[in-house]
């Protein structure tokens, strides 16, 4: 059976590559148009056709009018089913796509927004990312959008690229499957696994050793810095902006306390992957404690900060370290 499975996978790959050559790569939004939808009978459909064939032979042999009528009715039904299956997928639109990063070993996510702009409901639209993974299925009412989630396993850090998605349906009778390949570049960032037993490095800062206050305590004025994507608008220096200055962020900071600097080159006794994993562990711990941390990599430097964006930037840097894009 494994040989058959491998052959089937190879065949599917070749077919998808052919479809790519024929259709070209896709850009969002993708509308599933007539010429890109393919349709074939399922196993149940082949069984059904055998049933119809047997009925035909029996009806012709015994000259039985009702059996022949039944045969013809079911054949017509099969043809109608083929049309309906095709029409179920036709003009479904993929509006949007996003990815969710994950740590190595966890599952990365793909989020899609699928729209049905027609007045007929579409049932059982199935999305597949990888052959063996779970299928996301949804029913779309008339003129409705739905969000559909897929997940893929990750095994190495870096960028996980998927070449295509498979959108299929076998509604209504399950006798035919209509499908199309959507060739979108799907890239999931896979962070290194957070692993390492080393304690967090000692705190740096202007007043090292000073008692750290809670984050709700008074913060000292540190200065202004340029606005970065993801900064909270509440910290923007609006008065300065009103006067014509560019967008600036008012920087406050705890007085030197809970400021850590994670240095890649300081971890001399670990190899590259282990260093990255340890740094990941530290970053997560620092985030959990609410401390500010900075990251020093051979090619990049991230100033001490905290927050979801900072975390993501640092983790992405760790994930992409040494990975050629």
């Amino acid at each position, binding site marked *: 059976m494994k040989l058959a499975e491998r052959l089937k996978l190879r065949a599917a790959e070749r077919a998808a590559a052919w479809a790519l050559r024929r259709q070209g790569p896709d850009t969002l939004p993708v509308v599933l148009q007539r010429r890109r939808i393919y349709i074939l009978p399922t196993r*149940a459909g082949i*069984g*059904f056709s055998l*049933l119809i064939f*047997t*009925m035909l*032979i*029996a*009806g*012709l*042999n*015994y*000259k*039985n*009018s*009702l*059996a*022949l*009528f*039944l045969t*013809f*009715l*079911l*054949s*017509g*039904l099969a*043809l*109608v*089913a083929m*049309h*309906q299956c095709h*029409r179920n997928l036709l003009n479904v639109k993929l509006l949007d796509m996003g990815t969710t990063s994950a740590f190595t070993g966890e599952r990365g996510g793909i989020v899609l927004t699928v729209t049905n702009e*027609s*007045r*007929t*409901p579409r*049932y*059982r639209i199935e999305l597949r990312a990888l052959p063996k993974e779970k299928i996301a*299925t949804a*029913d779309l009412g008339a003129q409705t959008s739905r969000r559909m989630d897929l997940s893929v396993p990750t095994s190495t850090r870096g960028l996980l690229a998927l070449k295509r998605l498979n959108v299929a349906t*076998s*509604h*209504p*009778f*399950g*006798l035919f499957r209509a499908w199309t390949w959507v060739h979108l570049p799907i890239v999931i960032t896979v962070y290194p696994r957070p692993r390492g037993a080393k304690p967090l490095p000692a705190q740096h800062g202007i007043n090292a050793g000073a008692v750290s206050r809670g984050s709700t305590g008074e913060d000292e004025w540190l200065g202004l810095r340029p606005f970065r994507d993801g900064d909270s608008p509440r910290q923007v220096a609006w008065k300065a902006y009103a006067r014509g200055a560019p967008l600036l962020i008012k920087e406050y900071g705890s007085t030197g306390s809970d400021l850590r600097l994670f240095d890649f080159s300081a971890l001399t006794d670990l190899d590259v992957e282990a260093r990255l994993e340890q740094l990941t562990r530290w970053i997560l711990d620092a985030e959990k404690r609410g401390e500010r941390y900075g990251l020093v990599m051979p090619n990049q430097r991230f100033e001490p900060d905290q927050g979801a964006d900072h975390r993501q930037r640092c983790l992405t840097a760790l994930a992409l370290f040494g990975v050629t894009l």
Partner: protein
Amino acid sequence: MSAYADRRALIWSTGSFLMAVLLHIDRVPLWASAAAFACAGWRIAATGRTVRLPGKYFKTALTFLTLGAVLLMFRTLNGLAAGSALLVAMGAIKLLETGNRRDHYITIGAALFLLLAACLERQTILRSPLYLLHTWICCSALIVVAHPRSLLSNRGAAWLAAKSLLFALPLALALFLFFPRLPGAFWAFSKSGSATTGLAESMSPGSISELTDSDDPAFRAWFIGAMPPPNERYWRGPVLHDFDGYTWTSRREHHYVPERVDGLGVAYRYRIAMEPHSESWWFALDTITTPPHRRVRVTYDHQLVGTEAVTELTTYEAISHTRTQSSDPLSILARRFDTALPVGRNPKSRELAAQMRARAATDDEFVKSVLDMFRKRGFEYTLTPPQLDLNSVDDFLFNTRRGFCGHYASAFVMLMRAGGVPARIVTGYLGGEWNPIGKYFLVKQSDAHAWAEIWVNRKGWVRIDPTGVVAPERLERGILDMFPDSVSAQARFMRRTPWLADMGQAWDAMNAWWDAQVVGFNFESQLSMLDRLGFDEPDWQQLGWTFAGTLGAWLLWMTVQLGRAPRGPHQDRITRAYQKLCSKLAHAGIHREPHFGPLAFADAITAQRPDLSATLTPLLTAYANLRFGPKLSAPKVSAFERAVARLDVARR
């Protein structure tokens, strides 16, 4: 959610299978049907926690048990009845499997197979709607089982199945008419049908009267052209030659060259639709010379004998004469066979015959004197005469003097033979009930009759019916009229209520139409249909082309119909009206830029043609409200359409 979906799929697939079992419930052995319902109940009970399904060994044992039971009952696994029973039982065992999608598909497949078996078995007009209903249920089950978690409700699935079947119906009808049903079979299959009891190849005293309470139809006859008068409506069945003193039998091994026969009077053309009766003879009006079908031959005694038993409704056309003449002499063999009498049996009748023959000058006078005896010597025509002993003719002529058509015919032929006149018994049917709706004669088993034929020099075989002498009303009226109390209860009841009898006739006419046009639709029917449509010399190739043509036409129609996305009815009209408005304005020289919405267009018109602004601005605003506004109402749409239609824009 998953449990709900599983149960839903289970109920639909089980339901379709059980309905298939119900279709067969009166033919399939009771244990099989009961097993099906029991297994279905077990399986549904097993969706809870308490009941568990059996394991592999139990099911295997059950399978072998089933095979054994079917073999025991039917002695074979082959054949329609055995096959249906086997399928019902096997499907029942399949129901006990845990239900994944494949199992449900197999169950529905089994249901469809049982439906096929039901169609092969019975094609009556009453059961056809049931078959359609079952098809619908199976298709709905397919939809639900394919995607049980879908948001499509059960009612939605049934509606979708009905819509799909309706789309498929025109194709089914077209294929039904035009798909070439080439004659011949791929394999032979003995259908053990339930045959109606009717005439046999032997006749004993009382065997004909046994059939008088049977309402089963034997055949229906449509006359094309002239119809014979009631006293000539004799339908020939088995002709009996050999007598053993009590029973007459037809010994088919006797062959002799038949005499050449010339028909006198009208040649009656008729069509017969013969019900299956598990014998191999066909019926014809009196004397037939040309076989109506290549599968049947005319015997030397003008009987139609087919190559195989009649197991299904058979239609054929034939031409017969009711009066014939033959100038050939009777062959020696014929004379020997048809004057033979058993030695030592019925001695008194032999003597009587010898006496009467001696007294008569010619054969004709002899015949007349025998008939006179029947008429005058106090003979009675009754359905329930006393039993006769082995010397049946003696007993009848000298003792009881009461009998039915068979007794009289038997006695007459025996007397003829004893007097040296070659004679033979002809069994068959007499008369038939006229159905004014379908314009045919319905001949039932209760019309069974026996009469005689004697050989007259230079005239050939002449029909003599002693019943016509003793009970001449029998020729005009049917058994029902003559012996109203002895026919079946239904017939009596129908007779008493005339409107019921009319309805019965209408029902029979509808059944006859169904049997002839739908069930009996065969290759010849297809060719004659093509002929009526205007094709010259239709053959199966032309049929094939017509079939391909209709298939293509249907595919085209269906693609167009299904491909049309349903638009909201109001939306469509609004867009059309707007387009009409724009085209009217374009004709007047005002073009709408493609990027203009209706309000921007109104502004442009105000700038370009201020004189039209008063009429057009409200119109365009109305369109904008209809198209993009929150509420849509039919009167507003109609008002907009009317305004657009009335618009008349002059060119500047």
